[in-house]
């Protein structure tokens, strides 16, 4: 019954566009929740170099690095998904929506790989 309920709530969930919508939503909410922590961490600079360095040393942990990769992926996901939405709303309609979705996913992957390579 749960599956049937989910299907009736989101009838288009078999469509690639649904997953683009879900990815945009989830990345948007996650980024909003992350922003206060990001601003607080950078705000450590107000208390001087030592405070900022203390935070940066903490951020050297592998678990924090993994979270950073996830955040970069979320940011790239929301950027490419958002550009796609702006194109849908403000540019003439294109029938190649799945191609555009694939381009957005590819651009996100490219950003993730660029960040991973820079971390090494």
């Amino acid at each position, binding site marked *: 019954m749960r599956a049937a309920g989910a299907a009736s709530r989101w009838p288009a969930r078999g469509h690639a566009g649904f997953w683009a919508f879900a990815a945009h939503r989830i990345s948007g909410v996650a980024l909003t929740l992350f922003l206060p922590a990001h601003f*607080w961490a950078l705000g450590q600079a107000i208390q001087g*170099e*030592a405070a900022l360095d203390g935070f940066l040393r903490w951020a050297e942990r592998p678990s924090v690095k993994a979270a950073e990769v996830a955040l970069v992926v979320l940011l790239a996901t929301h950027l490419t998904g958002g550009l796609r939405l702006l194109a849908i709303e403000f540019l003439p309609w294109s029938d190649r929506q799945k191609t555009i979705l694939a381009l957005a996913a590819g651009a996100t992957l490219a950003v993730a790989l660029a960040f991973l390579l820079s971390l090494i």
Partner: protein
Amino acid sequence: MSARAETGLWLAQRLSAAVLALCVLVHLVTIVLAVQGGLTAVEILGRTHGNAAWAAFYATFVLAAAIHAPIGLRAVAREVLGWRGPALEAAAAALGVALAAMGWRAVAGLFA
């Protein structure tokens, strides 16, 4: 909320999105370049302190995010939680003010 105000929020969401698209692109490139070789406070502050152009860029980035994020979260709260009414509008506005204040504080700390 009136239809006119809803339209205003819709427009603000798209305008802030357009600004953010440019800001996020620049931010992602900066991140990828900056993390190479690791991050230290000396390196970060050496790059940022007294740099008015980057301060203006990030202050604009913060403003756009402080407009964009609460409007997006408000839409999610309405559609997913069914939350409506003045309390939601107040919460969204408070989130925007808090994000702007925290973000500009960080910009001041890094660039001033």
